């Protein structure tokens, strides 16, 4: 009983300090971000040469979060963060999507609500972002990070999220056979990203 009451007060405090935005239908939703209340940090991605050198020589693995927001989708609360940065933007001048080259700001969604942001919980704001089983486009991101607008995306489901369904995929392999997720139903599939180089 006492535990229930304690959780109730915590939830009330959370909602007072971090107003939750609810998404229903296809309307964009603007979220006012709040400064992160307690220390939250995430695994720092390696971006560019400076990032690589920082990891190698400084062991620079952690990145604090600066802004926090909440979004309720289909009855589930999603807490997300913006990592510490001087300015924020959805622009990606490099035109390349992958982590090493993508210059757009990242949105970190604590998908498993463990208070720790791992690399796979980081999404680039110039690409569709996955909340649960729905995709959103970041249509606006304030330069200071205090506000962002999410619009339901027409993009297909993408991105891996622990405990959620794998997005459909279809690739042509080197034997010219199509490899799609549907073919692996009933099997355990290991997707191995590799290179010969």
């Amino acid at each position, binding site marked *: 009983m006492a535990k229930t009451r304690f959780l109730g007060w915590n939830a009330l405090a959370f909602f007072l300090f971090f107003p939750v935005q609810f998404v229903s239908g296809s309307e964009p939703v603007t979220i006012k971000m709040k400064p992160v209340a307690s220390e939250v940090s995430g695994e720092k*991605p390696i971006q560019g040469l400076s990032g690589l050198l920082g990891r190698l020589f400084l062991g620079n693995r952690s990145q604090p979060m600066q802004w926090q927001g909440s979004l309720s989708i289909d009855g589930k609360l999603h807490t997300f963060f913006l990592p510490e940065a001087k300015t924020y933007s959805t622009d990606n001048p490099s035109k*390349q*999507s*992958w*982590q*090493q080259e*993508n210059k757009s700001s990242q949105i970190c969604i604590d998908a498993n609500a463990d208070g720790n942001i*791992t*690399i*796979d919980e*980081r*999404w*680039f704001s110039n*690409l569709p972002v*996955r909340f649960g089983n729905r995709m959103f486009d970041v249509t606006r991101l304030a330069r200071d990070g205090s506000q962002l607008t999410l619009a339901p995306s027409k993009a297909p489901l*993408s*991105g*891996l*999220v*622990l*405990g*959620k*369904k*794998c*997005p459909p*995929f279809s*690739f*042509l*392999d*080197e*034997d010219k*056979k199509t*490899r799609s*997720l549907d073919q*692996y*139903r*009933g*099997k*355990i*599939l*290991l*997707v*191995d*990203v*590799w*290179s*010969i*180089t």
Partner: protein
Amino acid sequence: MQKESRGKIEVLLLGVDQSYQVSRKRYQEKSAQIFERCQINWPDVLLEKGWDDVQESFNLGGYGISVIDEHGIVRGINVGKRQLEKLLKDCGAFGAE
């Protein structure tokens, strides 16, 4: 592990060499050598956009193995060897037929 699973485990290789300007010919030659040496016969895909494809399709930015269970649910992302063995056991990969 794949043999122990009696056909329950499948592997799909996604090659990102296009991001490193490796030609398809070079990739096929080298990958064939590796497969022969390791005695594996896994389907492999040389992704047209390399890392960009991996980022856009799976939101992954690095090498590693991700585990999808028999129902299409993501059970592990970029897992290490020990975690992989545990995950496969949890997924029932080595259970009785």
